[in-house]
């Protein structure tokens, strides 16, 4: 067990542009195969690429958000290889002059801060999509040419959990930047991992394997955990590891070597002659930097400081930009001293409803001001916590104000003694044994009588008041 895992992650990201990286074809997902192609992205002779400036500036923006240095001078290169999903037989990519390099992302893992170094962020184009059949493969080039950002970390991640935390924060950061959909199901965010293990005393890296085919962050975490165990087992039993690419099988929860007839790739990179180079002026860079919104980590720290939230609550609320906006509107306008009262509703009932509907908090028909009203009713004991849940469910399904629902469903809590008297009387009458038990010192018996009274009031009685009244009566 004295091995240390060393992990590096490579994320590929579709940028959220209307048109492809080098031509005007639409990037819309899910259209008829080969309906969004043109001479440029099909690699017809004589066609010329022209870079999409939105893709270019998104790359710069992402680099800045990841604390990278932005290249003053950058260019594109051809990465040559033959595969049927690549119509030109080369991919336009960046080799030795990426748009951004030498950055970092500060994450937190098991309560401890950790800085993950970023080697580079570069812009390239995606390949087409292959659908494999028994005897042949079908090719759809709609995806070919979609702007793709590659973000590569240093080999500084030391556990599957750290990898998971990095990916989660990276995704959230990218969503805040609004540069990508980050939808793994649609393939707009993909992740490969390089992993090796070494004895804790060693400083050189062990033999690595490259893991592919993980289709969720959980998949990345599980694949890494499996692969680390496998490598330690091989080394522990005196075996030797070989450098190879392995595929994650999410059904069998195992990695297996990718069978490939190819020898080591030799991409023969050379400068793309069809694209002149790019100069990123300092003032343009500064302008893009000003457009970067408050990012998730800064927001978490501010939520903790300004609203006195726990680190956990702050992280949950800040993980999505839209939810953070909604939460902050609630937090600012909620006049109660203890923000926890409203935070519990946000991170609890409301967020779980939003998740089950796969929508943001703002998609639930409950306005922040209505939520604040509801929490206020609970605090003033005008409605019980239990009834409030029913009210919230109604608010979510109808979008109506809480006071209307409380009135219509007759859910307001009964606090005044005279109205409760009758229920208590009945409960005492029907349960003489419990009354006796309580009088003989059994505390549980009192709680039973409270429960019986609650039942008679159809859950509307205020349990605290009932308890006090019962104590006085018996």
């Amino acid at each position, binding site marked *: 067990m004295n091995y240390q895992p060393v992990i590096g992650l490579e994320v590929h990201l579709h940028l959220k542009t209307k*048109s492809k990286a080098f031509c005007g074809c639409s990037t819309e997902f899910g259209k008829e*195969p080969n309906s969004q*192609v043109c001479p440029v992205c099909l690699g017809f002779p004589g066609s010329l690429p022209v870079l999409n*400036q939105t893709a270019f500036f998104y790359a710069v923006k992402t680099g800045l958000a990841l604390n990278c240095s932005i290249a003053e001078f950058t260019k594109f290169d051809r990465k040559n290889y033959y595969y049927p999903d690549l119509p030109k037989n080369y991919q336009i990519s960046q080799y030795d002059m990426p748009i951004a390099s030498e950055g970092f992302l500060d994450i937190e893992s098991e309560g401890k801060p950790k800085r993950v170094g970023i080697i580079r962020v570069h812009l390239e184009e995606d390949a087409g999509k292959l659908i494999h059949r028994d005897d042949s*493969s079908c090719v759809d080039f709609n995806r070919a040419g979609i702007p793709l950002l590659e973000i590569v970390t240093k080999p500084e991640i030391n556990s599957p959990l750290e990898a998971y935390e990095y990916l989660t924060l990276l995704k959230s950061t990218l969503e805040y930047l609004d540069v990508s959909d980050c939808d793994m199901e649609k393939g707009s965010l993909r992740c490969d991992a390089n992993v090796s293990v070494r004895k804790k005393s060693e400083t050189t890296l062990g033999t690595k394997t490259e893991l592919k085919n993980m289709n969720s962050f959980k998949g990345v975490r599980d694949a890494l955990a499996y692969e680390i165990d496998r490598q330690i087992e091989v080394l522990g039993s005196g075996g030797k590891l070989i450098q190879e690419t392995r595929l994650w099988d999410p059904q069998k929860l195992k990695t297996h070597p990718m069978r490939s007839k190819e020898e080591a790739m030799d991409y023969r990179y050379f400068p793309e002659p069809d694209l002149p180079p790019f100069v990123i002026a300092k003032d343009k860079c500064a302008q893009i930097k000003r457009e970067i919104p408050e990012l998730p980590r800064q927001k978490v720290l501010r939520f903790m400081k300004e609203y006195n939230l726990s680190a956990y609550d702050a992280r949950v609320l800040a993980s999505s930009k839209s939810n953070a906006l909604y939460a902050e509107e609630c937090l600012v306008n909620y006049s109660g001293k203890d923000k926890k009262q409203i935070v519990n509703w946000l991170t609890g009932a409301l967020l779980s409803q939003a998740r089950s509907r796969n929508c943001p908090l703002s998609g639930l028909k409950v306005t922040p001001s209505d939520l604040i009203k509801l929490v206020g009713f609970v605090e003033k004991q005008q409605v019980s916590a239990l009834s409030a849940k029913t009210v919230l469910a109604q608010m979510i399904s109808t979008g109506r104000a809480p006071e209307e629902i409380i009135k219509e469903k007759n859910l307001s809590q009964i606090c005044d003694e005279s109205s409760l008297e009758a229920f208590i009387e009945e409960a005492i009458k029907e349960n003489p044994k419990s009354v006796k038990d309580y009088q003989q010192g059994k505390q549980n018996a009192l709680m039973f009588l409270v429960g019986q009274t609650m039942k008679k009031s159809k859950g509307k009685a205020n349990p605290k008041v009932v308890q006090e009244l019962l104590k006085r009566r018996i």
Partner: protein
Amino acid sequence: MQIKEDTLNYLAHLGRIELEAQESKILSGQLKDILDFIDQLKKVDIKDVSATSHILSISNVLRDDLSGESLTREDALKNAPVKEGNFFVVPKVIE
């Protein structure tokens, strides 16, 4: 500079072309001539010439992110040796 047979075969493989023995002989001669021709550049004094990655002294040619017309599917697939429905079809590429 002589081109070794191994080098030529490797290049042919990278380019996915098959060469007959006769063709190999002709091509290795031609490759040698090309490399020798390019090698003349080594003699040029470039002390005062700055490095470049592009032949034209222009930069930042960008276009607005607007999506325009694509080819019709018929046109896109017109020259495909094998097609099926809306797809290009190729020999199976994975085992």
